[in-house]
């Protein structure tokens, strides 16, 4: 694998994580628990979709085949997507979404902190902007974590179940394969093993202060770094890519 190929796949991964997470969060539009939260969720969704546009645009440039960010978002099949499995899981109830957001925003804050010092200036620039957004996503998820965890019996039960269900999807966040290893040597990407220990130090106290029991799981899901996904991604793409598939190159 050349450095250019590694960088392309790495950018797809950054872009796909944001795109699929953003698409899922946008499903809260008009369905939030109340108006203010509806807007908060869709704001966060748009932050994600905005950064996916930046990463995929750069990916298309690195690929050098004259594609655009829209080609990459709307014309790839599910085996060509590299988003983490946790991002494609259904939004579930509000507690489930808060749990997903806490896990992902803790991860994003740490990753973008590192990437804002990347030797690749474009990645560093996008990461610096994304870091500001993710710091807010983190605060939003953290505060809801406290409220749900220490709220009513029902909110605690739902939130505890969500953390329990999602925990087996946290392992693959820190997987490193050839792509990450090549780019780490180049000073472009970061060491996800270090991110892992920082992530645990960041999320554990929040879960403890939310009166949430830390799950113990003996199996971690994996596959997305090879383009192997859950059954959910195909359904997302059939919805998200419908227009481009039905009316190729449609413009408005």
């Amino acid at each position: 694998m050349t450095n250019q190929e590694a960088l392309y796949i790495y950018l797809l991964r950054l872009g796909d994580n944001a795109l699929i997470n953003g698409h899922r969060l946008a499903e809260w539009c008009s369905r939030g628990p109340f108006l203010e939260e509806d807007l908060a969720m869709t704001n966060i969704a748009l932050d994600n979709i905005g950064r996916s546009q930046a990463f995929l645009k750069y990916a298309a440039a690195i690929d050098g085949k004259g594609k655009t960010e829209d080609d990459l978002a709307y014309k790839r099949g599910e085996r060509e997507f590299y988003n983490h499995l946790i991002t494609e899981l259904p939004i579930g109830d509000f507690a489930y979404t808060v749990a997903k957001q806490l896990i992902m925003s803790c991860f994003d804050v740490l990753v973008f902190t590192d990437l804002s010092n990347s030797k690749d200036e474009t990645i560093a620039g996008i990461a610096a902007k994304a870091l500001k957004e993710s710091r807010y996503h983190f605060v939003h998820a953290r505060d809801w974590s406290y409220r749900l965890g220490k709220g009513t019996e029902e909110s605690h039960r739902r939130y505890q179940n969500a953390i329990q269900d999602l925990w087996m999807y946290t392992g693959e966040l820190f997987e490193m394969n050839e792509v990450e290893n090549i780019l780490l040597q180049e000073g472009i990407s970061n060491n996800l093993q270090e991110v892992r220990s920082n992530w645990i130090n960041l999320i554990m106290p929040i879960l403890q202060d939310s009166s949430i029991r830390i799950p113990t799981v003996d199996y971690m899901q994996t596959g997305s770094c090879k383009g192997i996904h859950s059954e959910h991604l195909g359904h997302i793409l059939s919805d998200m890519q419908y227009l481009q598939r039905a009316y190729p190159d449609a413009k408005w």
Partner: protein
Amino acid sequence: MDTQLALWEVFIQKKSGGDHTHCGSVHASDSAMALQNARDIYTRRNEGSSIWVIPSQFVTASKAEDADMLFDPADDKIYRHPTFYVMPEGAKQI
């Protein structure tokens, strides 16, 4: 029954050093949530540089039926406007 969370009044400062202007209200269970909700609703198009939130219950409002008594007497007292002074030379504003 009102199932909404408590009401908070939102004041946004457009630029650093300027005044905070009332722009609306949000529902929230505490001040931290009120600030976040205000941020998401009223500053998403880059309208603000600072936010104040104040529980609506602490706002004391004048009554509509008192408007005659409170405000009409000021109608015919134009001499209270500082428009009868000659502008000192060189002053840009009084």
